[in-house]
Every structure is written in C-alpha cells, then in structure tokens.
C-alpha cells in the first residue's frame, strides 16, 4: 500500500478503505486481469465480477453494442460460481494487496442464505455487494428486486449472517422511485447502498430486422448515464443515513467531484476503464487538486446541503464558497 494511494480514507459500516475509489463490478474481472495497467492495491476496493450460487454461462452473443456515449451489454452474469471464486480467485487478489468487495447475486432467499454463510468465514473479505439490479438475467435480476419489501428481505437475510462485514446493496434505477428501495435497504440493515446499476435499454439490428440482443433487454452504462446516476445519488443521499456509493458513467475527475457534492461516500469506476486505464490516476489527481484548492481535508466536505424540496418543488442548497 503506497503512501500516495492512501488518501481520503473512508468507512462503510464495520469496514474501512484506504481511498474512496473502487472498481465497479463487471468492469474489473476478479481483480487481477488489469493488474499491469491498474494495480488493484491502488484502489480503495475491487468490487468483483458478480458471483452466483452456481457457475453461469451467460447470454448468447452479441452481448455488446456501443451507443452514443454509452455501452449496452447483455452479458448475463457469466461467472465461475461462488465455490470456484473462493477457491481460485479470492486469494490471488488479496496476495496482490487488493481489497475484495465481493459482489453476489442469487434468485432466492435460500440461495442468499447459503452464499452469505459461505462468505462469512473469510476474514480477507471486508465487504460484500449484493447485486439486486442486473437487467440481464431471468431470475434474481432487477425485476425481482424492484419492490421495497424484497430489497429489505434480501438485505436482512445477508446482513444477519455477515455482521462483521460491510454489506452494500446495489440498486436498480429501473423502477418508479429508487429512493423507496434505498430506504428499504437501510431498514433491512444495509451498511451502504450502491447506485446505480445499468439502465434497462435495447437496440434493434436494422439489417437482421430484429432486436440486437436475444433477450431484447440489455443494460446501458457509460458516460450517457452519468446525469441519471447523479440525480439518483442526490435523491438517495437526501433520504437515507447510510453511505451512498455512486456508480454510473464516471469518465473524469469532475464527475467524481459531482458525485461527492451529491452526497456520495465513495465512487466506482466502470465502463470507461475499458478504454482509459489512466482514469483512476486522473480521478485521484483531479479530486486531490480540487479539494486542496478549497482548503478542505476530505472530499466528503464537498457534500451539498440536501434541503427537502420546497412547496414550489424546487430544491435549495447552500453553494460551497
């Protein structure tokens, strides 16, 4: 752990992290695939590729389609399964100095019980992200987690079995009001909420005359969704007391600063890492410079006052000097 990467440490529930910059699930593999260009020990944590109770083959190809400033994906949670993850993937990341923030997804409460019990004995795992928002699977995806009651149940089921780990709940934006889901996660005992997962979207192949993806529905990520994510983070931060981890379209340090102003405790870098491995260093330098120029100690001080909407429906806040 180098001195330069231990900067602006944060806490989420029982876990602490050396900095607030995480890799987003699905964009950093199991943690070492990018090690040459982005050493995992420079990140606050690596949110790993989501693992499921059993290995998953994922969806048919094509799985990707670029859109203006975005990327549609229909991967379908292809992963090795939790057993192989714990056996083969966890230790190498820890040995390299990376901090595993293990992402899990399941279709039933029983499966979440089993996965939480499997993770509990591992002291090297400080934090678990529960992926309740994948639009690319038939069971256990965003539609099954679109109701506050389900979110609360899933959250409580996992947190009760992992009292010593930070449990963060990743929410789908594909609902009428994500704030209700965030409150439900808080109610269920979550240590943080993560917002947002990909936006459900589709494309049509004009030549073949059919939807581009076999499941029709895909998830949109990339800079195109940043303003959407910013609003969701803003709304959630105003409504819950637990930390909000912001994710969605970060392409530059300015985006991260805006997430901090909206109330984020930490951020996750995702799709843009595919084409810009320098993003982490650019974010680190940009945030440091901005914070220092304002004489602040920590980017959390950038958080704007979230004033409830007034009668006229206009949010008000006190600008930073």
């Amino acid at each position, binding site marked *: 752990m180098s001195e330069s990467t231990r900067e602006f440490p944060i806490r989420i529930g029982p876990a602490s992290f050396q900095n607030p910059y995480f890799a987003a699930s699905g964009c950093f593999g199991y943690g070492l695939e990018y090690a040459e260009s982005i050493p995992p020990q420079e990140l606050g944590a690596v949110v790993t590729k989501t693992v499921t109770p059993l290995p998953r083959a994922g969806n048919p190809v094509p799985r990707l389609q*670029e859109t203006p400033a975005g990327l549609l994906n229909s991967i379908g949670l292809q992963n090795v399964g939790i057993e192989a993850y714990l056996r083969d993937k966890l230790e190498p990341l820890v040995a390299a100095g990376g901090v595993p923030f293990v992402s899990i997804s399941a279709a039933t409460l029983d499966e979440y019980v089993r996965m939480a019990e499997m993770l509990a004995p591992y002291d090297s795992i400080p934090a678990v992200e529960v992926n309740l928002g994948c639009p690319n699977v038939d069971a256990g995806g965003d539609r099954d987690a679109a109701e506050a009651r389900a979110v609360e149940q899933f959250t409580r089921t996992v947190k009760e079995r992992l009292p010593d780990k930070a449990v963060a709940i990743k929410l789908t934006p594909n609902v009428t009001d994500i704030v209700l889901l965030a409150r439900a996660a808080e109610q269920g005992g979550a240590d943080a909420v993560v917002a947002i997962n990909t936006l459900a979207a589709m494309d049509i192949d004009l030549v073949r005359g059919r939807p581009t993806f076999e499941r029709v529905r895909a998830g949109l990520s990339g800079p195109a969704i940043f303003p959407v994510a910013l609003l969701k983070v803003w709304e959630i931060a105003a409504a819950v007391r637990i930390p909000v981890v912001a994710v969605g379209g970060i392409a530059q340090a300015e985006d991260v600063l805006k997430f901090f102003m909206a109330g984020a405790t930490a951020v996750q870098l995702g799709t843009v890492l*595919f084409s810009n491995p320098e993003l982490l260093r650019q974010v680190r330098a940009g945030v440091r410079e901005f914070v220092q120029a304002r004489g602040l100690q920590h980017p959390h001080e950038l958080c704007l006052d979230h004033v409830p909407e007034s009668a006229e429906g206009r949010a008000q806040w006190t600008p930073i000097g």
Partner: protein
Amino acid sequence: MIENRRLSGGSHLLRVRDEHARRDTPQSQPGQFAQLLAHPSQHLVRRPMSIHDEGDGWRSFMVKPVGPATRELVALRAGDSVDMTPPLGKGFPAPGELGEGPVFLVGGGFGVAPMHFMARILDGLPQAPEYRILYGGRTRNDVELDVLAGVNGEVLTSTDDGSLGFHGTCVDLCATQLDALGAARAARAVVLTCGPHAMMHALHGAVARRVHALYASLEEVMACGVGVCMGCVAKTRDGWVPICTHGPVFRSDTVFDLEGTADHV
C-alpha cells in the same frame, strides 16, 4: 498515424506508429489484433482490428468503414493521433508448427488482413512451407488485391457472382484445391482462415476432416479486449470463453459443430 491508403474496394490500409514493432523479429503474431480508435473520438470503446503487418516502428491494419467508429478511423490523416493497444490475443500457430505444407490461407473479405501478415512471414523463412492465399468475396469489389502487395505466394481469388476469379465461395475454392492435391497430400495440409463466421463455419464443414488442421480467427464485438467484460465469448469444448484472450484464433474443431456439448463456464 503514419499513412492512410485507400484500397481498391474502399477499405483503408492504416499504418500506425508503435515504437516496439520490428519487421525482422515481429513482436506480434499473425491473427493477433490491436484495438484502435481515433483520438480524440466520438466513441467509447476501441475497435479490434487484425494485424496486417508489422514493420520497424509501425503496425498496419485493414479497416473497412462499416460503422461510425471505423468511418472516423479511415478519415484520419498522417500525423493524426490513434488510440491503440499493444497486440492482444492468441494468433495462428507459429510458421514452424505448420508442417511442410501445403498451407492454405483462406481470407473472406477483410478477413484477408492476417493472411497478408502470415504470408509475409512465410516469405521470409529460409525453408518456408508451400502456401497459397485463397481470397474470396461476394463481388470483385470485396477482393482488394492491393492489400496483398509484396506477397510472394500465389493468390487465387473467388467471387460469389463470378465477377473475378473462381465463380463460387472461397470455401468451394478451397475444397477444389484439396481435390487437386489428392487425399494423401490434402491430409497433411494446414488451413488458416479469417472471415465472416458463416463462411468459416462452412469451411470447417467442408474441409476440416480432410486436412491436418484448420484454424479460424473469430470475430465478435469487444469492449475490454483483455478478458474482463466477458462481452466477446465463444462456445468451445472448454465452455464459454472470451475470444479476446482465448482466441481470436481457435482450432476449428474446438468452436464449430459442438452440438451436444454441455453449457459450462
């Protein structure tokens, strides 16, 4: 970008600076690819391009303008910036592993690009196997022979409409070539191919059992290029694997006609 040359059928040959590249001791293998995007670009992810050649301080790529990102690339001029990864993936077998020949390099459309690289390397060997390039397209417009400039080996062309060379597909042409060799020589032949998926699948069906080995370079939409995003997978006998790291070149019998193979990861 060092040079952007328009080819006869509308594709472009782009030469891009890479200080690590060497002509006599290539740092990449035919069949490997790099991901390219104009810099700056309107687009988000780099596009995978098979390597056409490697020289001292540069690599070349055959780019067909099929979408907005490739149109952006071919509009670049010498001196413009290109965002390019190092060579990625696993290429075709090394020349020493191809046996004594005959070797058939079967390119469909702009799939001919890595065949140029392989031919150029075979030309430079003291004891090169006998090889032929079979270059097919739908019409003569798809067969841009200037992309093979400088190659010593024989080039046979085919077009679906008969407007140039053999009248038929390059699959038919390859089968005809093997017929002419006789079964014994054909059984020692190695076939390397790159082109549309359906063409390579058909080639596998037509010749894989008659030759020593058939290797195919697969194409798929990619994002990360290094096995992280799982966007570009192919079903193989070993399960669903990312084409960018396990390929793009596979032995054809590991990726085609897998009926009955279990879906596993």
